[in-house]
């Protein structure tokens, strides 16, 4: 028994490494636009393959966004399905870095019962504009060497005390008043703690215990954090730069909402007066040098799903002086504008189309398809034999790239089931027979449509606009 106890105390707690398990998305392999310093696209880089012309165009736009030159402009990425429109947008987002706000939404997301379309759009617009502000505080930061508190013998009356703080460079004694003693005992500060005292408010916060005192006690709570003894001067000035989005400022100032609104995600509608007030305040801050405005990027995928009202709202919103760069993507040709009977290229009204910079994407060649499939295999951790790769590339060329990508993970599963390490042609054949591609599926429909239910819509061209 005694030995067991000793074992338990000397046993170092096992450090378990928690690796974050991320789900693999369709574009998770994109790390950037794959351009070199001269903005020339590399054939294969950062997960991007081919589409050299459109990537180069996107690179030019990216540089302009970074320099802040093209706030309030709009870009349209147009191309057939499966030609990498979303990939280019993701690439732009990745290369902008974490500091530039990037908001992505799909065209159909704005249709909801709780919020009007224009409200959803203006919230998206304001989420894509960042405001950089700075907070500055004078603090006293140091490791507590000693606290000495004298309580009067009578039990009542003012307490007095002394607090000794040190950094690696210096040490000093502070006389304590009643208030400070109270907050020190409230925070349970003791010798060996590293604390900060906010000079303006007198607020004390504990950062943790000093490493040099790590062996003071044998048993310590798991929540005890050890920190280094602070360096430099005791009385420091701390400057913190925050980046918040305009939408976040809107939300906390929209008075009908509690402060919980930000967490529940359901913000409801924000009054336009609140927005105007915020705009005025932010502009005032900018004039005073207190804030920088970072126009970010708003990406609307499947933009043909927007209707006429949304398009006219976009027209107007792009003219506001607090406007982000708008990137849209569509796979439609000449089609009806939603909500009207008029036909227009890309399903976008001509007047809006006129304001756009249009980037076109073109179908991938066989070689590029091969490379994309290879990248996806690496991303999904599937090993592919040379022949299987060739077969898959053929499938990708003849059906669609998306279908071929779907086959990768399914073939990987089949391969693992037969305890193989490398996906062979048979695995591909098997999943090819298990899952139909679009062409074979419609072929099947044509042959057997009489045996399906509700087959009266014989001329049934799907109305997608």
């Amino acid at each position: 028994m005694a030995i067991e106890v000793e074992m338990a105390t000397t046993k170092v707690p096992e450090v378990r490494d928690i690796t974050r398990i991320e789900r693999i998305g369709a574009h998770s392999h994109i790390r950037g636009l794959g351009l070199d310093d001269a903005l020339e696209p590399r054939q294969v880089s950062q997960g991007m393959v081919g589409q050299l012309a459109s990537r180069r165009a996107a690179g030019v736009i990216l540089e302009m966004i970074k320099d802040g030159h093209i706030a309030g402009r709009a870009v349209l990425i147009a191309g057939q399905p499966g030609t990498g429109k979303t990939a280019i947008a993701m690439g732009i987002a990745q290369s902008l870095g974490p500091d530039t706000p990037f908001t992505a939404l799909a065209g159909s997301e704005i249709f909801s019962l709780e919020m009007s379309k224009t409200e959803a759009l203006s919230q998206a617009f304001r989420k894509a504009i960042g405001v950089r502000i700075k907070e500055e505080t004078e603090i006293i930061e140091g490791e507590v060497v000693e606290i000495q508190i004298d309580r009067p013998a009578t039990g009542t009356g003012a307490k007095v005390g002394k607090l000794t703080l040190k950094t690696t460079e210096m040490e000093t004694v502070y006389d304590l008043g009643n208030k400070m003693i109270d907050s020190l005992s409230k925070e349970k500060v003791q010798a060996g703690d590293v604390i900060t005292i906010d000079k303006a408010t007198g607020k004390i916060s504990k950062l943790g215990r000093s490493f040099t005192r790590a062996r003071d006690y044998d048993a310590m709570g798991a929540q005890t954090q050890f920190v280094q003894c602070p360096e430099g001067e005791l009385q420091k000035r701390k400057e913190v730069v925050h980046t918040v989005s305009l939408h976040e400022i809107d939300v906390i100032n929209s008075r009908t909402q509690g402060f919980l609104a930000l967490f529940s995600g359901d913000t409801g509608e924000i009054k336009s007066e609140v927005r105007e007030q915020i705009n005025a305040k932010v502009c005032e801050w900018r004039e005073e040098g207190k804030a920088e405005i970072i126009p970010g990027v708003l990406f609307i995928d499947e933009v043909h799903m927007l209707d006429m009202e949304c398009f006219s709202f976009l027209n107007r919103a792009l003219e506001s002086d607090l406007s982000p760069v708008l990137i849209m993507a569509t796979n439609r040709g000449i089609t009806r504008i939603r909500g009207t009977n008029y036909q227009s290229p890309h399903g976008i009204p001509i007047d809006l189309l006129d304001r756009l910079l249009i980037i076109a994407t073109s179908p991938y060649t066989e070689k590029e398809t091969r490379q994309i499939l290879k990248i996806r295999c690496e991303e999904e951790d599937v090993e592919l034999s040379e022949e299987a790769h060739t077969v898959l590339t053929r499938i990708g060329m003849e059906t669609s790239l998306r279908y071929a990508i779907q086959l990768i993970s399914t073939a990987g599963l089949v391969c693992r089931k037969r305890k193989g390490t490398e996906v062979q042609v048979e695995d591909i054949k098997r999943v090819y027979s298990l899952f139909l591609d679009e062409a074979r599926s419609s072929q099947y429909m044509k042959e057997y449509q009489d045996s399906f239910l509700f087959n009266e819509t014989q001329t049934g061209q799907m109305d997608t606009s």
Partner: protein
Amino acid sequence: MDGESKRVLEYLTEVEVAAEDVLTTKQQIVDLDTKRNRNREALNSLKNEVSDSEKVKVCFGSVFIKFSKLKTMEMIQKDQKQLDMEINNLRKGLKAKVNRLNEMQGKPELRGYNLSPLSSDEIKAINGLLKK
């Protein structure tokens, strides 16, 4: 030594000088803060432990001179003001120096470095956002 390596050496020297400059300023701030804290301790003990009529010995370099308490306090307070100002100036200069060093090393400029801070009221108003 050919021109190329000479230029590299020159560049490296320049960077080192700039870095040394930053370090010296930092050390200077630490030294001044030490002095400021010692002065503060002196003021406290003068206030609490010495009666008004008493005279105290003040050390100037290597000699001790007897001074009245009030006069001493006045002197130290003046010194404190001077120290505060100097530290502030050094801090301002430090920013420019760090910027210059970053520029020489080809590092990107720190974001939001030149912003003036929000007032405490404004910070309080958007505190909910910052504490995320």
